[in-house]
C-alpha cells in the first residue's frame, strides 16, 4: 500500500459541502493534477492532504499509515503556495534552508544542501540575494527549492504558476515536470489551466462541484471525455445535441453517419480540429452560416451557426496556412471524421 490514498473525504464549510465523498489513489512517483474551475473543491482537497484543514469525514492514508490527524508540520510534505509565501525578511538561501533550520541541521550542511537545490532549480550562486531582488520566475524557483529541500514524501503545488505571464508559465510548467521526473517525487498539483495539467500530469483528476468527474491520463481525457462537462472544460469542443437512429445522427445543420452508435438521444463532442470544410452539402455534412472568422496565426478559426441549441456556434479550426475561402455570411459545409466523434450519454 505505498502512495497516497484519499478515502471518502467530505468537507463542509458551514452548511456548504465543498467536497463530496472524494476517493483517490496516487501511486509513488506519480504526478497527479487536480483540475477544475474555481470553486470545484480542488484547493480544499489539497489543503486537507497538506494537513492545513481537517476533512469533515474520511481518511488520508500515506504509505499505509493513517495521517488524517497528523498536524501539518509533522507530515514532512513540501508545498508551494499560490502566493509563494516566501519569507520576505530572509535571504534566498535562508528561505530554502528554513525546513533544515527548523529541524536543527548544522549550518555547513544547510549551506551545502542550499547550493544543491539552487543548482537544481537553475539559480546557482543566488543564495545571498534578497527575495525582493528576484523576478517572478526566480521567486517561483526559490519556493520550489524550499519545498523540495527535505526530500518530501509528497510535493504539493497550489496553482503556483497562475501569477506568471503566459510564456513564463509554459516554461515553468515544463521545468516543474522535468524536475519531478528526475527526482521521482510523488506530486499533487492544483490548477484550473488545462494546458498546465496536460503538460505536467501523468494522471489528471477533473473535478466539478466537489465531485470527481474523471480520472485518466491527459490525452485520454482529451480524446475520450467521460461527460459533457469534461469535454467542454478540457480544450475547446463542439457539443451537438440530437438523436441517433440506426447508426445515423440527426441534429441541427445536418446528419452524420456514426457506425455502431447506440440508438437514442445523444450529445456529440467534436473537437474543432477534427472538422474540415467540404465543398458542398452531402449526406455526411453539417451546414450553417459563417458568423465569425479569425486568423490566429497558427490556426484559423471559423464560427458556424448551424442552429445549435443555446446559439452555440460550431467552431472549426483550420491549420494556419490553409486558405480559408469563407467570409462572414457565407454558407459553410462541414465534414467530420466519424472516428473523431465522441458520443456522450
Amino acid at each position, binding site marked *: 500500500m505505498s502512495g497516497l490514498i484519499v478515502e471518502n473525504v467530505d468537507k463542509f464549510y458551514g452548511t456548504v459541502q465543498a467536497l463530496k465523498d472524494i476517493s483517490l489513489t496516487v501511486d509513488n512517483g506519480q504526478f497527479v493534477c487536480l483540475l477544475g474551475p474555481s470553486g470545484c473543491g480542488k484547493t480544499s482537497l489539497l489543503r486537507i492532504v*497538506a*494537513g*492545513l484543514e481537517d476533512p469533515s469525514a474520511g481518511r488520508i492514508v500515506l504509505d499505509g499509515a493513517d495521517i488524517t490527524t497528523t*498536524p*501539518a*508540520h*509533522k*507530515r*514532512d*510534505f*513540501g*508545498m508551494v*503556495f*499560490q*502566493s*509563494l*509565501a516566501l*519569507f*520576505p*525578511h530572509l535571504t534566498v538561501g535562508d528561505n530554502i534552508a*528554513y*525546513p533544515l533550520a*527548523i*529541524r536543527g541541521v548544522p549550518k555547513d550542511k544547510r549551506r551545502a544542501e542550499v547550493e544543491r537545490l539552487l543548482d537544481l532549480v537553475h539559480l546557482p550562486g543566488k543564495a545571498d540575494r534578497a527575495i525582493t531582488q528576484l523576478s517572478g520566475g526566480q521567486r517561483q524557483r526559490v519556493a520550489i527549492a*524550499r*519545498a523540495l529541500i*527535505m526530500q518530501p514524501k509528497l510535493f*504539493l503545488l497550489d496553482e503556483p504558476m497562475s501569477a506568471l505571464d503566459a510564456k513564463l508559465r509554459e516554461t515553468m510548467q515544463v521545468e516543474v515536470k522535468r524536475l519531478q521526473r528526475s527526482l521521482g517525487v510523488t506530486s499533487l498539483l492544483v490548477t484550473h489551466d488545462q494546458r498546465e495539467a496536460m503538460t505536467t500530469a501523468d494522471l489528471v483528476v477533473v473535478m466539478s462541484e466537489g465531485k470527481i468527474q474523471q480520472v485518466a491520463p491527459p490525452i485520454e481525457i482529451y480524446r475520450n471525455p467521460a461527460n459533457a462537462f469534461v469535454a467542454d472544460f478540457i480544450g475547446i469542443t463542439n457539443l451537438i445535441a440530437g438523436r441517433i437512429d440506426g447508426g445515423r445522427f440527426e441534429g441541427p445543420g445536418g446528419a452524420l453517419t456514426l457506425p455502431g452508435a447506440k440508438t437514442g438521444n445523444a450529445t456529440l463532442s467534436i473537437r474543432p480540429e477534427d472538422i474540415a470544410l467540404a465543398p458542398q452539402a452531402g449526406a455526411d455534412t453539417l451546414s450553417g452560416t459563417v458568423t465569425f472568422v479569425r486568423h490566429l496565426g497558427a490556426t484559423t478559426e471559423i464560427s458556424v451557426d448551424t442552429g445549435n441549441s443555446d446559439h452555440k456556434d460550431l467552431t472549426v479550426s483550420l491549420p494556419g496556412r490553409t486558405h480559408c475561402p469563407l467570409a462572414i455570411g457565407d454558407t459553410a459545409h462541414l465534414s467530420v471524421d466519424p472516428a473523431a466523434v465522441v458520443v456522450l450519454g
Partner: protein
Amino acid sequence: MIQSRPRTPLGYLPILLPAFALIAFYIVPFGSMVGMSFFHNLGGGAYEEVFTLENYARLISPFFLSVLGTSFEVAFLVALFAIVIGFPFTYLLVNAKRGTQVFWLIVMLSVLSLSEAIIGFAWSTLLSRTAGIGVLFEALGLTEKAQSYAPSLGAVLAGVTYIAMPYAVLLLYPILSRIEPDIEQASRTLGASPLRAFFNVIVPMHRTPIVVSFVMIFVFTLGSYLLPQILAGRPTGRSRW
C-alpha cells in the same frame, strides 16, 4: 500607481478648502502652544507675553531631571508592555472573524475616546482597597486583607499601558492585516509548529513595524501623559481624582 493630475486646479478648490481648514485647525494651535512655552508663566494658566526660557530652564534642575528619568523609564516599560501584549493580540485579531475584528476595533477606539479623567478614575477605583481587585484578591484568599494597589508604580504602568495599548493595536493592525495567511501556513508545512511559526517568521518579518510602533508609543506616552503631569508640577501618577 499612476496618479492623475487634475486638469483644472480650480476644479478641486472646494475639496481643497477643508485641507487648508485642517492645516489652520491643527498646525496653528500646536504652534501657539510651542510659542506659549517661551512666555513668562504667571501661574494659574495666565501667561505674560515676554520671551523667556525659564520654563525650559526649570527642566534642568536636579528634581526635574530625576522625575524625567522616571518618566522615561515608565514610558519605556509602557511601550514594551503595549507591544508585547498588543502584537500577538493584533495578530490574532486580523485572523479572527470579521465580527470579532469590528468589536475589538470599536473597543479600542472607545478607549481612545474615553476621557483620561474617566480612565484614571476607573483604574484608581479598580486598584483601591474598597472596591477593586483588592476585594477580589481577599475573596479569593490570595491576600489576607484587602489592600490598596494605588498609587504605586505598578498602578501607573497599568493605567498608562491601558491607554497606550489601543495605539499599539491601531498602529499594527493595518500592517498585520496585509500579511497573507499563506506565510504562517507555509512555515507549518515546512515543519514549524504554529508557535514556532509565530516567533520564527511572523515576529522577525515585522521587525521594522515593531520598532517603529515601539518608538511611537514611547514618544506619545512620554509626550502626552507623563510630561504634562510633570510640567504641571504634579506627581507622576493618576491621582487627579
